């Protein structure tokens, strides 16, 4: 079991959701975050005030998957979120110790597998 964390461009969020759906990855959380990953800073001007936007808007996906789904998930994320420009984001894969589905008490593999599979 792994927890796949992907930080992507907000304008790519819909494409990512679509790609995950096609890869049959169903359990997804999504958060709007702000961050910095080494991309060029955007400059904005408001009247006389010019600022460098140090933090960019991003969307973070958190997806807990069983081993068989790790590579398909990563593939779906990489392809759907890529534009080729700096600032496309990152994917982190971290080991997952335990997972519990609250409703049924199912654990681990059962908990990260969609209902009805």
């Amino acid at each position, binding site marked *: 079991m792994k927890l796949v964390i992907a930080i992507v461009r907000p304008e790519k969020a819909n494409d990512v959701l679509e790609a995950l759906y096609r890869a049959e990855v169903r359990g997804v959380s999504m958060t709007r975050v*702000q961050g910095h990953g*080494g991309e060029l800073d955007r400059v904005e001007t408001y009247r006389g005030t010019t600022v460098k936007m*140090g933090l960019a808007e991003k969307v973070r996906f958190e997806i807990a998957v069983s081993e068989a789904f790790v590579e398909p998930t990563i593939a779906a994320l990489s392809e759907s979120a890529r534009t080729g420009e700096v600032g496309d984001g990152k994917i982190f894969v971290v080991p997952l110790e335990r997972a519990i589905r609250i409703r049924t008490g199912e654990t681990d593999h059962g908990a990260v597998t969609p209902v009805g599979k």
Partner: protein
Amino acid sequence: MTQVPALAAGVDTGDTAWMLVATALVLMMTPALGLFYAGLVRGKNTLNTFMMCVAAIAIAAVTWTAVGYSLAFGDANEIIGGFDYAFLNDVTLEPKDKESTIPHLLFFAFQGTFCIITVALISGAVVERIRFGAYMVFAALWSVLVYAVLAHWAFGPGWLFNGGTLDFAGGVAVEMASGFSALAAALVVGARKDYGRQALLPHNAVYVLLGAGLLWFGWFGFNGGSGFGTGENSVLAFVNTMLCPAAALITWFTVDLIRGRTVTAIGAATAIIVGCVLITPAGGFISPGWALALGAGGALPCYTLIAFRPRTRVDETLDVLAAHGLAGLTGILFIGFFAQKSWNGLSDGLLYGNAGQLLDQVLAAVVAPAYAFGMTFILLKLIGLVMPLRASENEEAIGMDVTQHGEEAYATGEGAILITPESGPESERPVAGPA
């Protein structure tokens, strides 16, 4: 104290006072339209959408002064006005002609505000993807080549006006012109990249309602001022501007209820616009009773088109064709049936025994859409040869506010680093290299 100069001969103080206010009311409609449109787009395109209305004021006010007004209201011939009034030549504080009771200069300004909002209206068809620069070039050319010509035909001493077509406040030059130009613009510029693939929802319904409310308020100047004074037609148009949108609202509520079992707020805002447009050509010509009927009945075709259009491949984004083109056309035709000489002092419609009026109205309803659509189509194709009309897909994805204007509508300032003059523009250098 300086002595107040005397009024020019023939100028009426009451008429002039009202027309000064009406001009300001109509000018306010363009920022109001900006608010209305801005609420209907996604949050990342708020400022760009609003700015296209602001740019319309800047550009059309200048082109109108330079040549637009002269081409529209000069009397060279019935097709085009000529250059007699170009750069305000002979546009003085005297009345324009024997019938007019307001200074010529004020008449020019009042008509200018109409040109401005008409240019702004078209932007609704192409929001969220047209490049700001290309839009401004289009606005300048359109205000002269399309608006001024149609205004000459319908308002000035042009062939529709002389032929007997009744258009009180701009069914031809404003509503049909913008609506059918919008369709052409949407076809030439093309659909947004996400159109038909993702739900593209209005981001702030309160802006939409507030914008519609301010537009309605401004429309009392638009219609109420189109009698150019405080005469009976002006009062009639003013009151009809209250009644027609109210009736359109009730129709919209009812159809909303039948279709979706709820009354929608954005639907209501749309109904206000549709109602105001419906009464625009007819305001000073039909009775208040028929104004209610026009609102109630005229809303139906517009509702139908707005419900149908998103199922097509035509991304005429904010439905200018339905809310202005079709509503304006409906209003123009309605005059042909229900105009009443006992109310307007000019002409009866078919219902009151004058079938000829209907023919005059049908002529305008054919000619104006054809000219506006054709000219806009050609104009945008030509501009497209010289410069790209659209932002790149990437820019469209990031949003037009950041890519076209370098600003955001909802900037939080979190993580923003102030650039002081001393530190210099080191902004293009990455702060940290990619890992």
